[in-house]
C-alpha cells in the first residue's frame, strides 16, 4: 500500500497522517472545483463543503470518485455515504471526511520502539 510506503520508519503519528490526508483531499477538492476562489482558500478540517466551499452535490460525487480511486479498497466511501442523505453529506466539514479516511486506512507498520 502506498500509505505504508510513505509512512516512514516507525509509522506516522495520527496528527501527521491527518495532515497528509487533508493535503490530499484539498488537492482533489481544488481540482474538482477548478475555480479561482478555491485556489487561495485555506482549507482546514473545519471548512464546510456547503457554507465555505459552496460545493454542488455533483461536485461531491466527483470528489468521492477521486478519493475512491486514490485510496482504493481500504476506504469504503460507499458504506460511509450510505448512512447519510444528501443534506447530511453536503453539510459535513472537510475534517469528517479526512478522519473517516484516516480511521479506515491500515495502521502504519510499527517498527520496534514506535
Amino acid at each position, binding site marked *: 500500500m502506498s500509505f505504508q510506503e510513505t509512512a516512514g520508519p516507525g509509522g506516522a503519528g495520527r496528527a501527521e497522517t491527518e495532515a497528509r490526508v487533508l493535503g490530499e483531499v484539498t488537492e482533489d477538492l481544488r481540482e474538482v472545483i477548478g475555480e479561482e476562489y478555491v485556489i487561495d482558500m485555506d482549507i482546514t478540517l473545519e471548512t464546510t463543503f456547503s457554507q465555505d466551499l459552496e460545493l*454542488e452535490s455533483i461536485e461531491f*460525487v466527483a470528489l468521492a470518485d477521486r478519493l475512491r480511486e486514490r485510496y482504493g479498497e481500504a476506504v469504503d466511501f460507499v458504506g460511509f*455515504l450510505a448512512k447519510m442523505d444528501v443534506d447530511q453529506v453536503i453539510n459535513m466539514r472537510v475534517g469528517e471526511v479526512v478522519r473517516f479516511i484516516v480511521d479506515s486506512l491500515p495502521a502504519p507498520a510499527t517498527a520496534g520502539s514506535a
Partner: protein
Amino acid sequence: MAEVIANGVRLHVQRLEPRGGASADSPIVVMVHGMVMDNISSFYFSLGTCLADAGCDVICYDLRGHGRSERTRGGYRLADSMADLTGLLDTLGVDRPVHVVGNSYGATLALAFGLEFTARVASLTLIEPPFLIEGLGEEMARSLSQILVAMTDDEVEEWLDNGAGRVINRATRAAQRLLSDTTIATDMLATPAFSAEALAALPIPVLAVYGENSDIIGQAAGLAALVPECTLIVLEHHTHMVLREATGYLRSLLAWWLFDRDTPPPPYVRDTERRFATPEWVTQMVPPPDLNAGRRPAVN
C-alpha cells in the same frame, strides 16, 4: 471508471458496489434521473450508495446534456435516450436483466425502455413518472416551459447574479444552456404516447411511487390500471419531489422491492411532521414571488 462513450456520446457514469465488490448474482440497478434541473447526484446520494451498501451493483449516470455528460446539440428524443442507455449497458458489459429505477422524466424513460427492451429489464421502479396515453409530448413540453418561465424571468436573473449563491447559480445556468443550446425542447414535444396495448402486455413487475400532493398525481391511477404487475404506492403529504422528501422510506421500499418482494411492502411512517405541497407558482406557471426582497431597500 467515470466516463464512457456510449451511442457515440461521452457519458459520466458512477458504478457503486458493496465492500468487497458485487457478486455474480447481485441485483444490477440502473438509476435514471429527471430532466433539465437534475443530474446523477440526486440518485447517487438518495438510493445509490445505500443500495450498493446493501449488496447491489449500482450504475448511476448523467443523461446526455446533463451533469458531467456531453452536451450534444441534438439527440434528446426518447428513442435517443434509450439508445444511450443500451449503449451504456453494452459498454459496461452488462449482459443480464437490470432493475431500472427512474425519477420523473427518468421514470418515463425507464417505462419506455421496459416496453422496448423487455429482455434486458428485471423490474421497473417509477418514481413520479409523467404518464399519459395521449398528449405525453405536450405534457413534457409543458413542464419544460414551466422551467423556462421560471428561469428567464428578470427577477430570477437578478437573483441568480446577486443573491442565489454559487450552487443554485451553476445549476440554473447549466439548465439554461441545455435549453438554449440544444434541441431538447422540440425533442420533448415529439415524445410518443404510450400504447395501451403494449402496456397491458408488459411482463415486467413495476413499482410506481407518487406523492399525494404531486401536480401529476392524477396520472397514477391510469398507469396502475393498465400495467398488469403494478404495485402503486402513494405517499401522503408528499409532492413530485418525493425522492428528496421521503428518501428514508424509499430506501426501505427499494430494499424490499429488490430483496423481499414476497413479503408485504414496508408501511410508510412519516419521519417528519412537515407536510409537503406543490407551490402555486409551479402549478400556475407564473414566476416565483419576489426573490430579491431581502436584498432591496424597502419601498414606501
